[in-house]
């Protein structure tokens, strides 16, 4: 027998040979897919009803959210004209003559910056103390309960509390004083109370971020002779930057959307009303003003101004700000995911 030489061939990918099944489709060959993921056909009726309710509610609320955004989008594009953003409100007889809401826009930005500037360092510090130290345990529990209580207080109650505090003569330097009577309402007052609104969100997010760092990372840092301060500042806080940012963005969202504190503590004017006799910028910050939420409230059909077109335009701008914040959170998270996580 002469040796049979098989010509050299390119190696073929080996496919596991499957025995033909006598009945039913071959699962490896495609055909009707069954058993890829379990269907609900085998479930008890109550579970199937539950699944149907989950689907229905999810779709319903998706639809509601989309409806709100789309409606505001449509109305806003219809009514928002760019000059509204840099024209202050003015007195007039029709919507075309009453200017824009630039003061409200700047007011929102000022209040947002000041509120977060107070809330962010305080919130992060509280969270770091709770997670890294937390002794004595009783004090830690009281702190946690206090933060949760602040989260639950309605903002109108916070506003009322703010009037009591900022109307005292000791804090008269934070607002205007007329003939010995402290007005008590200013950007300082509103920002201080708004920072309380954002504080619990920042504390919760930062705590979650710090707790998600495994204990052995801290040990690794101590084991090379680094202090607790260096570990916290150089390893832990940079690692939970996404969570801190999420907390700050959520807090910011709540601040710019808050109406009750603004209406009560910002003086209920339509434009900036700076204090006389004080230099820039304190004259504005100690004075009264308005924000987008206050403007929408006043300009809505049930408010004092009854300028519904401007109300929609302002609401649209507010919505854009919130969407931009959410997008920023997403960007931060995506960049953090590139660094990788611990595998254990």
């Amino acid at each position, binding site marked *: 027998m002469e040796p049979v030489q098989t010509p050299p061939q390119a190696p073929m990918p080996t496919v596991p040979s499957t025995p033909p099944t006598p009945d039913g489709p071959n699962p490896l060959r495609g055909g009707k897919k069954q058993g890829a993921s379990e269907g609900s056909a085998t479930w008890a009726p109550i579970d199937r009803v539950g699944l149907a309710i989950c689907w229905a509610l999810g779709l319903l609320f998706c639809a509601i959210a989309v409806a709100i955004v789309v409606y505001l989008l449509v109305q806003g594009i219809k009514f928002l004209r760019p000059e509204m953003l840099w024209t202050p409100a003015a007195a007039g007889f029709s919507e075309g003559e009453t200017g824009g809401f630039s003061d409200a826009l700047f007011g929102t930005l000022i209040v947002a910056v000041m509120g977060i500037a107070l809330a962010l360092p305080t919130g992060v510090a509280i969270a770091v103390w709770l997670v890294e130290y937390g002794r004595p345990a009783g004090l830690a529990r009281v702190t946690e309960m206090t933060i949760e209580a602040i989260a639950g207080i309605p903002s109108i109650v916070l506003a009322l509390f703010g009037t009591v505090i900022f109307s005292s003569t000791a804090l008269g330097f934070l607002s205007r004083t007329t003939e010995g009577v402290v007005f008590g309402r200013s950007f300082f007052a509103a920002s201080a109370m708004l920072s309380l609104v954002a504080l619990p969100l920042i504390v919760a997010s930062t705590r979650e971020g710090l707790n998600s760092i*495994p204990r052995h990372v801290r*040990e690794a*840092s101590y*084991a090379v*002779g*680094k*202090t607790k*301060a260096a570990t916290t500042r*150089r390893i832990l806080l940079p690692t939970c930057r996404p969570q801190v940012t999420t907390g700050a963005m959520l807090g910011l969202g709540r601040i710019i959307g808050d109406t009750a504190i603004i209406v009560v503590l910002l003086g209920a004017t339509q434009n900036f009303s700076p204090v006389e006799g004080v230099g820039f910028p304190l004259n504005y910050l100690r004075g009264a003003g308005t924000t987008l939420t206050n403007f929408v409230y006043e300009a809505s059909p049930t408010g004092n101004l009854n300028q519904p077109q401007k109300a929609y335009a302002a609401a649209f701008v507010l919505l854009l700000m919130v969407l931009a914040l959410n997008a920023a959170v997403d960007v931060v998270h995506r960049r953090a995911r590139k*660094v990788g996580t611990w595998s254990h």
Partner: protein
Amino acid sequence: MDPFRSDSPLAPPPIRRLKLDDPEAAKEATEPLTPAAGSGPQQSGFVTAKRSVGAPQFSIRRMEIDGVSVHYGAKEAVKGVSLPVRQGEVLSLIGPSGCGKTTLLRSLNRLTELTSTATLTGRILLDDVDITEIEPTLLRRRVTMVFQQPNPFPMSVFDNIAYVLREQGSRRARKKSLEPKVHSALDRAGLFEEVKDNLDHPALKLSGGQQQRLCIARALAAEPEVLLLDEPCSALDPKSTQVIEDLIVKLRDDVAVVIVTHNLQQAYRIADHVAFMYLGDLVEYNSATALFGSPREQRTQEYVSGAFG
């Protein structure tokens, strides 16, 4: 059929006894484990291990553990242990789980103090100074530790090492000035060749063995006098294990090395002195060849031959 007869297919495999090389013939060997020809699980197999390290060139006494007991609350984890730790040699702590070897290791750089219920009695001296008199962070720079699970920080490879080198509070040192030290630490850990092209690569994306070598480089960057290793290879594949074992042997001249290991063969391969602990007691402390070849205590003999563990 009686399942406990040794020729039935259901019989448990017999205990494999570790046959070790003649102590006089211990020389630098390159392959650690060669199975004896013709052995298999059916017969009582003899596995031959060769020591991969020669006798230590010198030894300087660096740390002294003197009658140390560690209690976690009421439970006594380490009972009255006394050991020397010398530079120029590798000391291995062996023993079954729960025998206190990790606790003893952690007490050497005062990491047990992080657990609030831990109390330590006895003395530990570093260069004749009681370690409780040295500030903890300074002590931990002189006695650094590498853990079982590789735990690099979530930063780049360069930043992991630079973090150790940067001083607390002072102005952040420039990257250029730290580069030589970072390179030398990575070189000592045997990682430089593999990462030198991109030192900004995120450390968490390295393989397990590379991450563990990075942790060793980080521990070496502090220029310690004693290096503690807590089962550094238990989470790694054999190839990485061999690389790290060679590295440990190379390091013993510069730092005193204390390694806790579950793996008896590893202890035989790389250790110069071995301390066997059982349930908190130091059962036997001897040179590696003596402890594995002719142990003094019955318990050591049983553990080393695999009767329990």
